C-alpha cells in the first residue's frame, strides 16, 4: 500500500444512492420534528415570511385581475360622439347615416335624448333631481364602433380627432383613453410590485438567515462533537438547510392562505362594482400555477437564506 504521490492510500468514499435518499428523508423529517417541538417560535418565523410574501403576492393578483378586465375592454374600443346641444335627433340620425359610409367605422348607434335620460336615471339614481330641471339637458349621442382595421389604439385616436372636428360634434370621446391610462397604471403598479417583492425577498433571506444563525449558535457543541467523529461539512449543513426549506414552505403556505383571504374579502365589493358596469367580471384568486410559484418560491428563499447563514457561520466552528 505505498503512497500515490506520497499521500498514502485514498479514503473509501463510496456513494450509495439509496442510502443517500434515505438519509435525506430522515434529516428532512428530523428537521420538521425539531421545528414542530417549538410550535410558537416556528409559527412566528413562518408567519413573518408569509406576510412578507403575501404582500406582493396579493397585489400582483389584483393587478392581474385589472389587466384581465382592461384586456376585455381593449378589443371593444368605442367612440362616443356627444353632439352639440342644438343638434336635433333627426340631424343626428342623418349624421349617423353619413358616417356609416366611412370605411373606418363599423357600427353606429344613435342614443336619443329620451333614451340617454332614461339610462342616466337608471344608473345614477339622480332621477328626482333631473325631474326638477324640467328640460332634458342631455345631448344626442352617437355611439360608434371602429371597423376592425381602425380599432388599434393609434388608428382609433386618429379617427376620434377627425370626428371631433365635425361641426355637429361637441366632444369625440375615445373610450380607449382611460383604458390606456389603466394600462399605464397597471404597468407602473407591476413595476412597483417587483421592487417591493425584491425588497421583501431580501427581508425573508435575512429572517431565515438570522433564525438559522441562532440555531447554529445553540447547537455549537453538537456541531463540534459531530465533526470530531468524522462528519463532513455536507452532513453538518444538511439539517440547517432543511430547517430553512421548511420555514420557507410554511411561510409560503401562510402567504397562500393570506392571499386567498384578501381575494375573498374583496370578492363582494368587486361584484357590486362590476354590477354597476353591467359586467359579469369576477375576481379570480390564485391559479394552480401561481399557488405553486408562491409555495416553491418561498421554499427556495428559505433554502437560500439558510445556505447563506450556514456558509458564513458553520465554517468557523471546529472542534478543539
Amino acid at each position, binding site marked *: 500500500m505505498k503512497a500515490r504521490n506520497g499521500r498514502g492510500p485514498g*479514503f473509501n468514499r463510496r456513494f450509495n444512492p439509496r442510502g443517500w435518499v434515505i438519509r435525506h428523508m430522515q434529516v428532512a423529517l428530523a428537521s420538521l420534528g425539531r421545528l414542530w417541538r417549538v410550535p410558537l417560535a416556528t409559527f412566528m418565523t413562518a408567519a413573518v415570511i408569509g406576510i412578507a410574501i403575501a404582500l406582493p403576492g396579493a397585489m400582483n393578483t389584483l393587478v392581474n385581475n385589472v389587466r384581465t378586465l382592461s384586456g376585455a375592454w381593449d378589443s371593444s374600443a368605442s367612440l362616443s360622439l356627444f353632439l352639440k346641444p342644438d343638434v336635433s335627433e333627426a340631424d343626428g340620425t342623418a349624421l349617423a347615416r353619413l358616417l356609416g359610409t366611412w370605411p373606418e367605422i363599423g357600427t353606429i348607434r344613435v342614443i336619443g335624448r329620451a333614451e340617454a335620460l332614461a339610462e342616466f336615471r337608471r344608473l345614477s339614481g339622480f332621477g328626482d333631481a333631473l325631474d326638477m330641471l324640467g328640460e332634458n339637458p342631455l345631448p344626442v349621442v352617437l355611439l360608434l364602433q371602429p371597423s376592425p382595421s381602425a380599432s388599434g389604439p393609434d388608428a382609433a385616436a386618429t379617427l376620434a380627432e377627425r370626428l371631433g372636428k365635425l361641426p355637429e360634434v361637441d366632444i369625440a370621446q375615445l373610450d380607449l383613453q382611460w383604458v390606456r391610462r389603466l394600462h399605464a397604471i397597471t404597468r407602473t403598479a407591476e413595476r412597483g410590485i417587483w421592487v417591493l417583492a425584491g425588497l421583501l425577498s431580501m427581508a425573508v433571506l435575512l429572517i431565515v438567515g438570522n433564525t438559522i444563525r441562532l440555531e447554529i449558535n445553540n447547537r455549537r457543541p453538537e456541531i463540534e*462533537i*459531530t465533526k470530531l*467523529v468524522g462528519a463532513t461539512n455536507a452532513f453538518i449543513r444538511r439539517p440547517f438547510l432543511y430547517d430553512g426549506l421548511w420555514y420557507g414552505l410554511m411561510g409560503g403556505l401562510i402567504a397562500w392562505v393570506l392571499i386567498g383571504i384578501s381575494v375573498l374579502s374583496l370578492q363582494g365589493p368587486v361584484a357590486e362594482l362590476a354590477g354597476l358596469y353591467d359586467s359579469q367580471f369576477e375576481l379570480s384568486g390564485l391559479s394552480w400555477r401561481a399557488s405553486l410559484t408562491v409555495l416553491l418560491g418561498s421554499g427556495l428563499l428559505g433554502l437560500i437564506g439558510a445556505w447563506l447563514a450556514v456558509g458564513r457561520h458553520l465554517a468557523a466552528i471546529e472542534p*478543539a
Partner: protein
Amino acid sequence: MIHFDNVSKRYPGGHEGLSGTSFRIESGEMAFLTGHSGAGKSTLLKLIGLLERASRGQVWVNERNLNKLSNRDIPYHRREVGMIFQDHRLLHDRTVFDNIALPLVVAGIGHQEIRRKVRAALDKVGLLNKEKVYPMMLSGGEQQRVGIARAVVTRPPVILADEPTGNLDPELSREIMDLFMQFNQVGVTLLIATHDISLIETLGRRTLVLRQGKLVGDTPA
C-alpha cells in the same frame, strides 16, 4: 502506524506547543504519553486527529501523510481515529444509544448495522442495560465508558485518549485501562495521554515523556 518526523506546532501568538518531535508507534502498539501540565500532550494528540495541523515536520498516520490531506479529507481521516477525552464530550440531549451511534450515522451506515454495532460496543464497555438512558443520569466512570464505546464503535485502527481517567478514582481508572488493554489485544493501536504515573508503572507499557514541547524520554515496555 503513527510516525512523527521532526514535528513542531506553533500556536497563533507564537507559543510552541510542540518542538521538533520525532517518534514512531507501530501498528498494534499501546503507548502512554506523559509530562507536566502544558508539556504538549494534548497538542500531540490533536495533530494526530487533525484537530490541529503541524507548523513544521511530517505527521504520518495509517500510511497517510497528514500534511498532504486537504480539509475535505479530514472527516474521513477522523473516522479512522477514535478519540476519547477527559470531559467525555457527549451530547446531553441524546440517549446513550444515540451518542454511541453518532460516528456510524455520520458515516452513512444503515439502520440494522447501527443497532448491531452499538449493542456490541455497549456490551464491550458493560453498559448494555443503559442504552436508553441520558448521559446526565450516569456516573463519571459510566460516562467515560460511553465515550469509549463511541470511539471504538466504528472499529478504528487507532485510538487516542486524552487523560481518560483524569476524574476517576484508582479502581475505576484501572477498569478503564483494562478495557484499553482488551482493545489492544485485538490489534488496535492506542496512544494514551495521562498524568497518572503510578498507573502507568503497574501496566509496564512503552511511555513517551514530553517536557516543554520536547520529547525527553521514551521508555520501552
